[in-house]
């Protein structure tokens, strides 16, 4: 192995509806993350972002992991797993903690208590918290970034909580565990994609990331540098295919192929009246398809998806604060004219997102489908960095132990 020692590998695994994707990242001692391997496999056991056939899903995960191992030349022991589905939702919550010390100075423990209070959300019993992301602190109502060392009477903290149904989350974990892989951490796909795509500056200006997946459309809104809203809509590219199969009266496999070859997010005037003749395997004509119908069906569905997202973001009041723009990723970002369509719906610039904030394989970073898995690697790397920064003998020892475990 030529990678320098003490550089742990981090693997992001996304079990998507159309493909399973594993991305291997390498965190060098300087804290710079490098993508060294990518593996993917067609996914067959997932609908709307959730596993419906564990056996097939496990097989697909195995294939993707094997491919990534081969490419990065590592052995994967644990992954950071991305989850999504209609049950995942985001909400903002506030935790309050009175400062009790005699001199009213806020210490680290106070912030921890406030955060703990903020995680108490009134939810159905089986709902579990995926993330509780700190937005900002308030000391006696005044907004501060870091309250430690300040004095005040009441410490409050705003957090963004992403939660989901515990049983459904565990289904995904179980599929991975069955392959003798450890799950280090769970992360919401929409959050992961936004980590891969956005720079700190863009988060500061306000941005919306929409991951147009096959089974789900996940989105995350940033403003003032912190995450403000997340959501998952269980409608995606599969629905486009299904609509086409229904409208053009062709099988799903053929609809998928037509979508990729002739699809567009907006009705292109030049295709009016253009017909495609479908042939069977012997080359005999089977059916004639009107491209105009194909594109109309497709654009209506995509428009609806984006409108649902826009409406949800509008309700948070952030729709007009997306100065950095809207960033599209996932397989849906490949659809021709999707940016123009989104530009009509969102009052902001629309960009096709690229994983800019990471170095590594250019071929992987430019693909919009890999944004989630790359984001998962990045999400996990934050934890490594915080562990590493403790320093000292003990920290170093712990780091070394962890790496030994990580690399086997």
């Amino acid at each position, binding site marked *: 192995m030529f990678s320098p020692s003490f550089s742990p590998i981090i693997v992001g695994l996304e079990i998507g509806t159309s493909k399973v994707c594993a991305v291997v990242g390498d965190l060098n001692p300087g804290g710079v993350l490098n993508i060294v391997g990518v593996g993917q496999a067609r996914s067959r056991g997932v*609908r*709307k972002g959730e596993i*419906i056939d564990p056996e097939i899903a496990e097989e697909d995960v195995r294939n993707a992991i094997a491919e990534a191992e081969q490419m990065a030349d590592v052995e994967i022991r644990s992954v950071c797993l991305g989850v999504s589905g*209609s049950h995942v939702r985001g909400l903002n919550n506030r935790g309050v903690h009175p400062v009790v010390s005699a001199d009213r100075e806020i210490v680290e423990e106070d912030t921890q208590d406030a955060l703990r209070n903020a995680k108490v959300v009134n939810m159905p019993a089986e709902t579990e918290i995926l993330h509780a992301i700190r937005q900002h602190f308030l000391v006696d109502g005044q907004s501060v970034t870091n309250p430690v060392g300040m004095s005040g009477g009441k410490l409050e903290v705003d957090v963004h909580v992403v939660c989901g149904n515990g049983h459904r989350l565990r289904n995904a974990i179980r599929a991975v565990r069955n392959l003798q892989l450890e799950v280090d951490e769970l992360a919401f796909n929409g959050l992961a994609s936004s980590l891969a795509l956005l720079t700190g500056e863009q988060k500061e200006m306000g941005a919306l990331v929409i991951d147009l997946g096959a089974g789900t459309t996940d989105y995350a809104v940033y403003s003032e540098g912190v995450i403000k809203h997340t959501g998952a*809509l*269980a*409608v995606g590219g*599969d*629905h486009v*295919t*299904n*609509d086409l*199969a*229904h*409208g053009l009266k062709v099988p*799903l496999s053929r609809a998928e192929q037509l979508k990729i070859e002739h699809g567009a997010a907006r009705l292109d005037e030049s295709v009016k009246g253009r017909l495609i003749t479908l042939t069977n395997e012997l080359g005999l004509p089977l059916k004639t398809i*009107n491209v105009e*119908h194909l594109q*109309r*069906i497709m654009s*209506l*569905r995509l*428009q*609806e998806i984006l409108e*649902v997202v826009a409406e949800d973001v509008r309700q948070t009041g952030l729709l007009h604060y997306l100065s950095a723009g809207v960033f599209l990723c996932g397989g849906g970002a490949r659809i021709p004219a999707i940016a123009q369509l989104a530009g009509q719906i969102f009052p902001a610039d629309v960009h096709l997102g690229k994983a800019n904030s990471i170095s590594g394989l250019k071929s992987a970073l430019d693909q919009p489908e890999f944004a989630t898995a790359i984001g998962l690697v990045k999400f996990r790397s934050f934890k490594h960095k915080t562990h590493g920064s403790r320093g000292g003998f003990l920290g170093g020892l712990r780091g070394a132990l962890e790496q030994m475990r990580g690399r086997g």
Partner: protein
Amino acid sequence: MNTIDSVQTIGEAAPPAGSPRKLAVKVFGVGGAGASVLDVLRRRGVAAESCAVLSAETGGWARSDGERMPAPAAAVLAEEQRTKVREFCADAEAVCLVAGLGGRTGTGLAPAIVQEAKGAGAVVLAWVTLPLDCEGSLRQARARAGLEQVAAVADGLLCLPNQKAFSLIGEQTRLADTFEVPTQLLADGVLGLWRVLARPARFRVHLADLCALLRAQADANVFATGAAAGANRSAEAIERLLGHPLLGGGDILRQSRAVLVSVAGGADLTMAEVHRVMEALQSRCEKAHVMLNTALDETLAGLLEVTVLASASPAFPVPAAMRTRNAPAVPDGAEGAGAADWSPHLLPATLPPRAAARLVPPAPEMAPEEMRQLLARQEASGRRRRDLPRPRQSQLQLEIVSKGRFDKSEPTIHKGEDLDLPTYVRRGVVLN
């Protein structure tokens, strides 16, 4: 031996004051069940002079010196009773008929009374109960037959099978009080409808729409009510409404094709509350045409009462031909607005000028009564078919659309729409 009392107009009270748009509504109870429901209604503020009861039993309230008629051998109305029914209904635009089916009086007389009331020019909405399962098959069969007879003649029909209310009859309920529960349920429903029709409203549902909603097969229509007071009354009222035994835990609403929601309250009723109620209900009846009616009733001060009338009948026509006396006629071209009036003496003035063509025979000589009947027949048959509005897009749902790949997965519902169905189908885009 039955002794059928004459039709009695009970009490003499001043006519209720209110907005000029409200309708003259009368409530007619037939038989024992009808009498006890009307008793409840009287106690809950329905004006006495708009109530009448025809019953073989003594009934629930103190009677004035009404005439007593010997009971007819068969369950038919004597001529004198017919006249009384017609007199009572003469100045009403809508009549709510309440009857318990299965017995002799209600089952036998209800269809005849409906016919008399219609003959007097009123729109008749029938509220009937069906016997409990344990009352025996004879009563059941008789009730079914009566239900069909009533359904055939009434403009609208709402039916409460007592068996559905049985779950509310507790273990400790004494036999004598068994019918308290269905009586209360029925009284709540009738009162809700009465408020829709007879109370001043900001959002008013047209009587024609109401009839279109309730005119259906014998047991396709259901009603439910829920009332609550206090700060959180809109949510509580909805909760009680959804717990109503006739709604079957909300399944009925989901299957309904047309729903009338009436929100009634005192002067303190706010738009926000109405909005909350509608929002909660609209999300529960995705396939239905929803109509809103708000009724203001000073007796409801501090209370919020939600009444839902739902029809599962597959097609909800909006007939343009249905008219009432003071409601504006739906313009439908040929006949003009004047034909809105049913009273015979106005008929000649409303007829369109006839072209002097030799091929058109002159109008036949007819008595006013015949003329009215002929007009009613025409209204009922030909015109309605001609005037059917073009089906709205949402009715496309009648066509079964396969969800393809998502057939077995959990549906993705967003604002009442199933997003798994192709967008172009839901939006009604036609691919030629």
